[in-house]
């Protein structure tokens, strides 16, 4: 596969880039949902982010990228304890994928031809410790969605079928993208995504031209282009790594907690997941920006992406939920 476009060279789309960086800092945030038009660089950004992150250390030959020999599932029969580094996995989950391919299944052909009972790991195994990217997530079949929800929440993929009983770790950051005009996402799935951002194609000609120019340069002379942007990418990588370390030391004062709760109440969001994510993402942002405590400013920046997809839909509100959140945030966090 060819080199992926450098993350720092993506023009604009600041919200999307920020949301992705935050999940890289704190994978427990619960994924990003990117809704927007076609051709706005959604999948480019996911791949670029994974290329930006430092490689992970995993046991050689382990199908689920385990970090140590102890974590390797016993069905994989891994003999070596050697660690190798591999790039952060990004697994595409295409529309129309079968359940077998997602969870893994008995390799039935091998069972028939050779009489061996072998488990063939699926996409969830490959995505462990990395990213699972679903393009057109709103068109995904319901039974696959249910399955993903279950695994994303528990972090464990359990396969109980055809005489197999197998479980393995499946902790991944779910990144979904789609075009809302083509179909809505069920509220249950919406709520499971930690952050959601809306992207639109840039409406400024200069910005569009810049996109085309960079992409054309990238295609013409990939190596030279990568060299130019490498330094920027490394800067982001360093900040992400520093933020990961600082995450535990970042304070969330009592006042901030109160603000989170007030904001959530003011918006009438269902459940508590909204404010939990809000706080967690704001903390990641504070760590990323090198601040020692979470402040109003962080909350204000995070509120649209953490809350906008958790509001009750109002079919006649043309302004969209992002505007509603920004309005509420202005009121409450003023």
């Amino acid at each position: 596969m060819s080199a992926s476009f450098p993350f720092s060279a993506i023009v604009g789309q600041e919200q999307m880039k920020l949301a992705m960086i935050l999940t890289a800092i704190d994978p427990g945030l619960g994924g990003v949902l990117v809704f927007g038009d076609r051709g706005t660089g959604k999948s480019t950004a996911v791949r670029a982010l994974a290329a930006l992150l430092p490689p992970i250390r995993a046991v050689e030959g382990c199908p689920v990228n385990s970090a140590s020999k102890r974590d390797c599932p016993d069905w994989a029969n891994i003999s070596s304890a050697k660690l190798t580094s591999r790039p952060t996995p990004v697994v595409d989950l295409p529309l129309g994928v079968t359940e077998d391919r997602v969870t893994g299944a008995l390799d039935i052909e091998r069972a028939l031809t050779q009489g061996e009972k072998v488990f063939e790991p699926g996409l969830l195994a490959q995505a462990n410790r990395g990213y699972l990217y679903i393009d057109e997530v709103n068109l995904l079949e319901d039974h696959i969605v249910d399955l993903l929800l279950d695994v994303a929440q528990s972090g464990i993929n359990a396969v109980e079928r055809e005489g197999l009983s197998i479980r393995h770790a499946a902790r991944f950051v779910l990144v979904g993208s789609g075009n809302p005009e083509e179909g809505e996402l069920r509220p249950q799935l919406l709520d499971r995504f930690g952050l959601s951002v809306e992207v639109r194609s840039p409406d400024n000609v200069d910005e569009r031209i810049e996109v085309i120019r960079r992409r054309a340069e990238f295609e013409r002379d990939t190596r030279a282009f990568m060299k130019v942007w490498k330094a920027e990418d490394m800067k982001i990588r360093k900040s992400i790594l520093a933020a990961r370390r600082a995450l535990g030391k970042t304070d969330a004062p009592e006042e901030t907690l109160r603000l989170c709760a007030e904001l959530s109440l003011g918006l009438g969001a269902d459940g508590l997941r909204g404010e939990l994510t809000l706080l967690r993402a704001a903390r990641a942002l504070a760590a990323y920006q090198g601040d020692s405590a979470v402040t109003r400013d962080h909350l204000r920046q995070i509120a649209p992406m953490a809350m906008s997809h958790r509001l009750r839909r109002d079919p006649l509100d043309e302004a969209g939920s992002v505007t509603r959140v920004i309005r509420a945030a202005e009121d409450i966090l003023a």
Partner: protein
Amino acid sequence: MRAPVTQWDLALRALTAVAIDPGGLKGMILRARAGPVRQAFEAELSSLPKPRHRIHPGLSDMQLYGGLDISASLAAQKLVREAGLADAPASLIMPMAERTQPGLAAKLAQMLDADRGHALILLDEGADPDETVPASLRERLAFGIELEGLSHKDCANRLPDAAVLDAARARLALVRPAPEQAAQLAAIAAHFGISSLRAPLLALRAACVFAALAGRQTPVEEDITEAAELVYASRATRLPEPAPPPDEDPRQEEQPEPEDQGADDSAPREGVLEDRIIEAIAAQLPPDFLERTVQKASRSGNFRGSGAGARRKGNRRGRPLPSRPGRLDGTTRIDIIATLRSAAPFQRLRQRNRKCAPRIILYPSDIRLRRFEDKSDRLLIFTVDASGSSAMARMAEAKGAVELMLAQAYAKRDQVALVAFRGSGADVLLPPTRSLVQAKRRLAELPGGGGTPLAAGLLGAAGMAELGRAHGLSPALIVLTDGRANIGLSGEPGRTQAAADAQLTAQQLSRLGLPGVVIDTAARPGKDGAALAAWLGSTYLALPRADAQKISAAADAALGE
């Protein structure tokens, strides 16, 4: 500048470009019904770089991604992997491309995004305007050409020789576009309301290809014009106008003003050139372009994933169908009993031919696959106008239709719900049910009279549809009304506001992509009902004196059962 070109020449130019740079341009869509013209085009496909494969919309994962070659494995007594189409660069030609399911389209799109040098030639044979290739593929392939109204005689021209193409391919790496050319192409795309950024990238690439073909180091105006014509004509969503664009285009993303300013700032000198190119592209647009744009916009919501619950044949769940022979390709499940049964009669024979045979010898041809017919229950939502004078008669007929449909519910697995609107709001008279008894009791007393709060009624139906969907039903909408709304959502009377609200809610509702039918019950069916049907994207039926039988039959026919 150039001689007027026919669609055939355009198709040839596009194909030439794809043959020179298959991996960069990703391919093209050719829309033409089967016939001599398309045959002539297919003959030209032999200039595409090898390997060439013909694929079909039922392409399996196994063929695409490769997998275990079962016959070779059995013969060799060890695992033999079969390479898939996605593994190596190839030119893939797909007839009947309009039948591509979203699932396959997504996999093909993923394959194209991986940049492994695949080119996809989609031969779209759709008859209706909305029978077409999925948007995810249309977006990624560089060209879209329609060959219509051509006769075989128009197709005299041929592609350049293979040697010319090879030479151009070799030169392509040396072609460098000038920096301002990217800017020109981006600005032109904005004029046509093309929001995706893939389009200008593909156009730039195509311009380089045309320059390479002509033996130039840098694309010139002619190359840019040709590339823009070929790439943008099929993607335009609006006509460029010096004045503010017409408001027919509801999906318009960009504000016209900043664009114009931006274009002026960045390229005052090229303004003239851009205008020329824009005119050239505008000339390429089909005459019914605006109509189509409006249609496309109104239909965009009707494309749904296969999880929507309509009837489908599958191999997961549902009513079992007879199993049938086939290959295991990851999407299918084996029917062990049927497989053993089909192998059983030959065991003696097979044992004799082998020395140390296992107890059961299976050949690939014995494998039987399990199939099910999976169909989720339909939820028919009757949305009935209970207003004004003729309400009583209309309600009685709707009641009759509900009861008729319920009577067949066991056979068809339908559920029925009834929402009535009158006065200042809508009421759910009958929540989704399959019980005839309950329905009769609920329907016995029926309010009528008052204004026509159409918007409120539609909102009620939308709520019901979402509820139904959450319960795994596939909702369908049957609206009985004269379409003359006179009460707005706020409950205030006033025709203008009521009509505006109704339009808004109807368009929101159409996003759900429900199958539906509007039955116009006005004494003189008029444009109101038809307009409502258009907003909803449903079928329109005028039945001024409909009785229960007619309504139930019409609903059945319109909903495709």
